[in-house]
């Protein structure tokens, strides 16, 4: 059974380092794309890579974002040799501040259809950050990716961000996590990219090919 293989055997420390650096490059490019679009400065952090049993994925993400009571989530699936799901997560209440990044003002009329506007804004930010990040990972590793339309959920409990049925619970999953802040509006958020065991074989080969070009 695949799940009997220890996590250490599935991805080595060197492969984790390479993936971390690729995530760093990819999210940096995504932040740059967003910063050009809405004139902000995104403060980046060092990405973190974790390999875990797929059944542990929902509790892992719940724990990571437990400081947020409710969250707004942009979820997007992607397919290529690199296959999985991305979750862009903001704490509740950031929607209006993010909208103001787009329209340049902080004034809202009570009667504004703010819920729909929030959803559209999150969808746009998600499209840019997730698309650019996954796209750059795929480019660096020689893959071509297709995406599902982003799904946006506003003010959701942090306990139900990732479904138990996302991956086969018997399989393993790799989580790429980065935390970011939008300097101007004191907005922080998380990006989780999760890929299932189906992609591991290709991913390991692609990571080594990436480094070999420098040897």
């Amino acid at each position, binding site marked *: 059974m695949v799940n009997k293989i220890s996590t250490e055997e599935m991805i080595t420390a*060197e492969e984790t*380092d*390479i993936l*971390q*650096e690729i995530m*760093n*490059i*990819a*999210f*940096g*490019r995504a*932040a*740059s794309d967003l*910063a*050009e679009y809405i004139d902000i*400065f*995104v403060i*980046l*952090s*060092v990405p973190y890579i974790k390999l875990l049993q797929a059944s542990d994925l929902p509790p892992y993400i719940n724990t990571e974002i437990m400081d947020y009571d409710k969250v707004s989530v942009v979820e997007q699936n992607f397919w290529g040799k690199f296959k999985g799901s991305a979750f862009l997560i903001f704490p509740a209440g950031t929607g209006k501040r993010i909208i103001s990044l787009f329209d340049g003002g902080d004034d809202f009329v009570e009667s504004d259809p703010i819920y729909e506007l929030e959803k559209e804004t999150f969808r746009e930010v998600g499209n840019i950050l997730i698309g650019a990040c996954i796209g750059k990972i795929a480019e*660096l590793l020689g893959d071509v990716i297709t995406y599902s339309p982003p799904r946006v959920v506003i003010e959701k409990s942090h306990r139900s961000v990732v479904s138990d049925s996302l991956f086969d619970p018997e399989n393993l999953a790799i989580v790429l996590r980065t935390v970011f802040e939008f300097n101007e509006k004191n907005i922080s958020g998380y990006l989780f990219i999760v890929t299932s065991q189906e992609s591991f074989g290709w991913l390991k080969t692609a990571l080594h090919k990436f*480094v070999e070009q*420098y*040897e």
Partner: protein
Amino acid sequence: MIKRILIVDDSPISIKIMKSCIPKDKDYELFDAADGQLGVDKYKEIKPDLTFMDLTMPVMDGFHALVEIMKLDQRAIVIIVTADVQIKAIARAHDLGAFSVLRKPPSKELIAAAIKEVDETLAQLG
């Protein structure tokens, strides 16, 4: 003339890539450090002719390390090699005294050209 080069980056792979991109024919002495604070400490110890510095690092980020190094030596030559390619990040690095800013992942050609530019600048300064 450049003799000693310091690479400051928290990623061991990134350091390996940088070392592979630095031309081998000049017998540079290569040193590395795994975060900004260690980079500043190493700078004090070895006084490199050129420092390649990442920006996003734990403990002390590259912006702060750049400030500390410039305080130690106003003539320090620090090239930022970063994944953070936001225009404001690049502008801030220049404002803080970076010699130039290169995008990750680097290439051998780009690193060789950057080193040549530093050599020419050092030659002009005498």
